[in-house]
């Protein structure tokens, strides 16, 4: 029997909720509203003149070829980062879960990269991949004969930021996958082993489905990460170039707003980005989550 607890005082629940509501209002709803409002204005940088321009900021964006290309870049970038970082993390977690000796040190090392600040990660990759200075660029050239120059080659540049962004997120995913694997009942796996199921089969038919809540959670988090938090890596390595090969939407928001100080257009871009991520999350929860077995 479940007993329903009711607050005796009418205002107490609201009072208890107030801090959380205040935080949400001040740090989420208010800025979001400000972005929405600014997106309808054309204003000078110091804020002396402000003209209401209806949807001009939006129509200007959609008639700009490079902005439209940015959608594709973002899509390719987001999906690749998510897939790459999640699959690598899963593989590492499965491996680390089997290690018997020196467990802790393996895990610690695998979690380490998460402590690296995104901007620092960017600088790190910048140095490793620099066509003149970088050790990786040098090895690519000498071992595989690959002429690495991400300053000229857009595909190489995109590949570089994908790998850098994925690398940064592997630790985080690893942590969750490992926890998921460890909470799995051993008896299930042992029973399957006794029935003669191979390790690969055991993984795909038992572990992977059981991990699905974790996988789903990570999918949402990683996509949001790829769409928003990867800005610093791109800023530190390619600045969106060459041409606009690595200019993902969030980077464009930054460069329009902070470099170009065109607040109207920048706000319009962040509104579009906001709508996109909301739509994506809704889709995930409505359709993908149905396949999740809790």
């Amino acid at each position, binding site marked *: 029997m479940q007993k329903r607890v009711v607050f005796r005082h009418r205002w107490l629940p609201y009072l208890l909720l107030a801090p959380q509501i205040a935080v949400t209002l001040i740090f989420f709803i208010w800025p979001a509203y400000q972005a929405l409002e600014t997106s309808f204005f054309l204003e000078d940088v110091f804020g002396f003149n402000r003209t209401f321009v209806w949807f001009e900021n939006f129509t200007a964006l959609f008639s700009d070829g490079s902005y439209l290309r940015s959608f594709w870049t973002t899509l390719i970038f987001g999906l690749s980062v998510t897939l790459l970082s999640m699959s690598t993390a899963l593989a590492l977690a499965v491996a680390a879960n089997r290690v018997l000796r020196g467990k802790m040190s393996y895990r610690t090392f695998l979690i380490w990269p998460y402590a690296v600040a995104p901007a620092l990660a960017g600088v790190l990759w910048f140095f490793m991949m620099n066509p*003149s200075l970088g050790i990786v660029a040098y090895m690519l050239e000498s071992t595989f004969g690959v002429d690495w120059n991400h300053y*000229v080659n857009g595909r190489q540049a995109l590949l570089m930021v994908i790998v850098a962004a994925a690398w940064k997120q592997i630790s985080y995913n690893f942590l969750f996958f490992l926890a998921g694997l460890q909470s799995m009942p051993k008896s299930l796996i042992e029973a399957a082993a006794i029935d003669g199921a191979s390790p690969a089969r055991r993984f795909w038919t038992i572990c992977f489905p059981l991990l699905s809540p974790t996988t789903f959670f990570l999918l949402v988090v990683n996509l949001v990460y790829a769409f928003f938090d990867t800005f610093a890596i791109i800023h530190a390595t390619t*600045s969106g170039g060459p*041409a606009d090969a690595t200019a993902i939407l969030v980077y464009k928001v930054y*460069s329009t707003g*902070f470099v*170009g*100080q065109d607040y109207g257009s920048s706000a319009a871009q962040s509104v579009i980005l906001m709508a996109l991520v909301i739509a994506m999350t809704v889709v995930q929860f409505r359709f993908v989550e149905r396949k999740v077995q809790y």
Partner: protein
Amino acid sequence: MKKHLLATVATLAVSAAAGQAQDRTEIQFWHAMGGQLGERTDAFATTFNEQQDSCTVNSVYQGDYTETMTAAIAAFRAGEQPNIVQVFEVGTATMMAAEGAIYPVHQLMEDQGLAFDESSYIPAVISYYSDTDGNMLSLPYNSSTPVMWVNVTLFEENDIEIPTTWDETIDAARALKAAGVASPLGFGWQSWTMIENFSAWHDLEIGTLENGFAGTGTELKINNPAVVGHIDRIQTMAEEGLFTYGGRRGDSRPQFVNGEAAMWINSSAYFGGFEADIQDFEFTQVPMPIDTSVRAEPQNSIIGGATLWALQGHEDAEFACTAQFLDFLSGTEQQADWAQATGYVPITNAAAELMDERGFFADNPGTDVAINQLSLNEPTSNSRGLRFGNFVQIRDVINEELEAVWAGDKTAQEALDAAVTRGNALLRRFEATNS
């Protein structure tokens, strides 16, 4: 109130430390000079603070040029603006348009009864930073100009003449390539060096209405045959392996330092850093090459760098300190010391003379190239500089389009046409918000 209290506490702390009874007025100076340049800039503030006892200047590094400007603007909108902010040359149009936010330096000096002789600056500086009435609204601080950095050792070892024209540059690059130099030519800040300065150097119009000086209705003209021909030439050099693109801003610097490139066109202000970083070979600066099919003799190059802007919304005592500090910074001694240490050009005639007297130019061959380029001829309306709104963004547009050329995705003509179209759209947005 809180600000006032803080100021009082800080003032008390300072006077207690210095053992002085007098109240000092505190002013904020935001700059964008990192590393060694930042230490030098902070040192100016320290010296100034020691020299007198009515003002304290707080010199604060705020990040790169873009970050500093953005921070100052955001601070202004929040009513917390610094007294002085350093703004790079391409932000000049934006600052000038913000009449309610800035305190024109010539006006400030006049109001505070301090002498400000605008004619003491070199012509290239005056022409770049003066408004249409011929007044300087900000105080020039650091100015440089693109030069061609040359790896003298590589040239001498292979017995090659240092080029003065673009035809000779191609020949020299071929000879260097044959001698094993990976990618003989390089450059940085490509919009500034290859488009803006190439145009000024050959007396070509960058935009209508005197490169934007005469109004915000200006339109870009950089898709003219001379510039297109130049970009095309560099792309041809790239295909031949004579040039490798090394990134935006100064990202290609390692090419020169490592000896991969023997000719590198970029700011004269790399002098200080090169002195510290290059030990393996001799280097010097020579004038940028000229395209003789466009013009027989070079016109003059244009500056890059930054000026100091005084911002409105402060008390009288703070304005007095601001004026005194700016007056101190424009002193001949300070200007000469700064230029000698960094490779920025001496921006006043007196500072150049002082450096000459000290024997700096004689001891460091090539260091006078930048100043000579700037004062080669009386600037024309094409070569005095440029004043385009949203120019920070336009430079990025130019970066993107040029990168499409280096990647072989677009021809020079296609890319520059696109840059003009996209750039003009940004100019129209600026016109709409500032007229």
